[in-house]
């Protein structure tokens, strides 16, 4: 899943900052993708809100 997220993020980065800069951000984007995967998979219920 994080690979798919990374692809979406890379595509956004290319659009916003150009291909060269997106390439320089590759490792950062991978970390963001791993983090987002964890955030999306964390168990949350509607009544978890205090």
């Amino acid at each position, binding site marked *: 899943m994080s690979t798919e997220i990374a692809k979406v*993020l890379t595509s*956004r*980065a290319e659009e*916003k*900052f150009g291909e060269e*800069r997106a390439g320089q*951000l590759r490792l*950062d*984007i991978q*970390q*963001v993708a*791993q*983090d*987002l995967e*964890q*955030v*999306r998979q*964390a168990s*949350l219920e509607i009544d*978890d*809100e*205090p």
Partner: protein
Amino acid sequence: MNPETLTLTAASQAIRDGHLSPIDYVQALLARIDRVEPRVRAWVTVDREGVLAEARRCEEEARRKQFRGPLHGVPIGVKDLFYTKGLRTTAGSEVFHDFVPSEDARAVQRVKAAGAIILGKTVTTMFANLDPGPTRNPWNLAHTPGGSSSGSAAAVAARMCPAAIGSQTIGSVGRPAAFCGISSLVPTQRRIGLSRTWPLAWSLDHVGIMGRSVADLEIMLDAMSESAVERTRRPKAYRIGIIRDYFYAHATEEARSLNDALANKLGGAGFQIEEAHLPAIFEVAPATLRTIIRAETASVHEQVFPPNRHTYGPKIRAVVETGMLIDVSDYVRARRIRRKYQSEMAKLFERFDALMTPAAPGTAPDLSTTGDPVMNGPWTLADFPAMTLPHALGVNGLPLGVQLSGPPLQEGSLLELGKAVEAVIGFQAQPSL
């Protein structure tokens, strides 16, 4: 009396008793700055004329026994992220090289109202992120003082000022305090106002206090707190939960062993020390923290970044740019996880008065980094008050700190516990500069 060696508590009392003149105190600290600052590089701006003028006013008032508050005549350092009226505030960036605020930050207003003299502005890493600044560790100039409150920690450790204000979004106060062998307190976020303080991530930013004793932190907190800090009676025996798993996995063998030795020493002194275990949700805490920071930092820099991106350091630039890629739904989800995390983590205090971990993974690394905030981030995310106390020296002669955290808004109890722990530790070492 050598004024530069005084703690804030001792200096404040000496001024009140008429044994220390605010002018002599300021002059002693300025002389100390002249001697050590070329090596430590803790200051962005030292306001010599303003400081001396203010010291003269404080001295005249003290002669008349008129004291503005508990910090009367005490010079302190302020991280260069907090607005200071009439005094340049750069946020560690050339973008704000010439920015002179017309108002003080709330935290600065509070210490001034309590009688403090703003000695100057201390170095922050660029926009309070991870790109190292020029400051060196007073214990060993080849090592980092930590960041982002690099200058505040180094200035207090190097006896250039008795206390300083810093800020923490992940580990920007607790980590430099540990690396520099001083004490720090990061209270619950709403304890001290953040207005007119350049943000890194609004929901996670905290004002922090650095000093050379728990009593110093207490005086500063009382002066800066937006609401009265409640005191509670000392229990017969403090219950401290030592958390090893995640924290020991990120600590050096030396930090683990010295932390265990401290736990044993505290146990021998009557503290109840037991192992505490983290709730399952802790697993997602680091990812949650990073997601919130990236998204909020991108928003903070939305206007400033585009025309100035070439001036940004590589680490803050990457945070801003990757933050721009995050969907609002992921950000909101991270904020919801944080609330659940805070609620789950707070249950630990049903069994313990405080939780204990190392304050940093080990001693200060070299100057290529400001060190890893991994030990501090979980408490900032929880918004639990966290205190760092120096407790040992590593084999390389650099200090290590212990981190104690307490329930939200229970800083009064945490300070009392901190005093008891400090007395058992008995840390007396100082950097030789």
